[in-house]
């Protein structure tokens, strides 16, 4: 099973990819920022603070998305003892954590002028804070636990348990009354966000996804080199 994932073949691709990804990232970020900060209109009620959303929402999406991938890969890592899955998960975690923190901080900055408070213990915000804790424990576990197999098992279990939080984050705004607004973009319904504001949102999401991919590739290559030169593993 999964013998098609040959790590040496993968490495030959991932070691060359970062420079191309970086190039595309810079272009998309540039267009995205111009759209978000200059071309897109202000909102009818919250005026220019709507522009915070172009950082806040993509960050939240990316952090939730990355944790979902880590959680699913962790299943494969435990069940099939696939080493590559755990290396991918380990390399994905830092950018997920960073985007989670960005989402919480920008949300707070947006909340003060709009809601009138920096923080509210409503279910959406709290569940995002819990995701942040899961990220922290996950990253720390990789650092603290010295035995490789043990670290792999513990982190995978953390990720699988954290996976339960993901649907809670997603549906918190529908299940309970929250201060946080419900989703503007739904799968089956028309989005309640005007198209002139949707464009920068999508562009910024693409830019952040590319940035995550870039950081992931760099982390992944480092891990691969560490494995190749055994002993470099721990400094």
């Amino acid at each position, binding site marked *: *099973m999964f013998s098609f994932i040959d790590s040496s073949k993968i490495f030959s691709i991932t070691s060359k990819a970062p420079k191309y990804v970086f190039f595309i990232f810079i272009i998309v970020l540039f267009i995205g920022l111009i759209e978000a900060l200059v071309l897109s209109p202000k909102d009818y009620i919250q005026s220019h603070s709507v522009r915070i*959303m172009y950082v806040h929402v993509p960050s939240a999406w990316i952090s939730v998305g990355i944790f979902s991938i880590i959680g699913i890969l962790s299943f494969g890592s435990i069940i099939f003892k696939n080493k590559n899955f755990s290396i991918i998960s380990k390399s994905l975690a830092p950018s997920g954590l960073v985007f989670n923190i960005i989402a919480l901080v920008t949300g707070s900055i947006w909340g003060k002028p709009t809601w*009138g408070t920096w923080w509210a213990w409503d279910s959406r915000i709290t569940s995002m804070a819990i995701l942040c804790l899961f990220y922290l424990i996950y990253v720390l576990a990789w650092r603290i636990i010295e035995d490789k197999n043990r670290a792999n098992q513990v982190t995978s279990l953390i990720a*699988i348990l954290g996976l*339960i939080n993901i649907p809670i984050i997603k549906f918190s705004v529908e299940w*309970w009354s929250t*201060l946080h607004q*419900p989703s503007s973009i739904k799968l089956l319904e028309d989005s309640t*966000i005007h198209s*002139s504001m949707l464009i920068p949102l999508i562009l910024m999401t693409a830019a952040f996804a590319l940035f995550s991919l870039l950081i992931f590739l760099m982390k992944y290559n480092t891990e691969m080199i560490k494995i190749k030169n055994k002993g470099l593993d721990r400094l």
Partner: protein
Amino acid sequence: MYGKKVKLRILFLSSVILISVLTIFLILKSLEENVVYFKSPTEIKSITELDDKKIRVGGVVKEGSILTSSKKINFIITDYKNEINVSFIGAVPNLFAEGKGVVAEGFLKDRNFLTAEKILAKHDENYMPPEVKKALEDN
């Protein structure tokens, strides 16, 4: 197809997931009172016992209900079924307006009256430029 160990691990993981999901579900269910950020005026009406605890009421600021005197501000929160009167001393957030979402935090005097200590404006999921809003209103 898979070895015995793989099957065992699948069984182990699925039981871990099942038990944790159940546990979390039960915890959230029993804590529902606290998980909701605010109550609607209708839910306030159905409270059997009033206590001195701080409470949050959320809904829409009723059109034409805002009354401002020198310091005090009075308004009505409605969920289009029931209403609750709110009085508040202090500054309200910028987005506080008639017909918009609001959450008031404070103490209930009775089932119809809340003395608020904090007013939070709720933003809905609609985002659009001012011109589009104007065009929508003109129609």
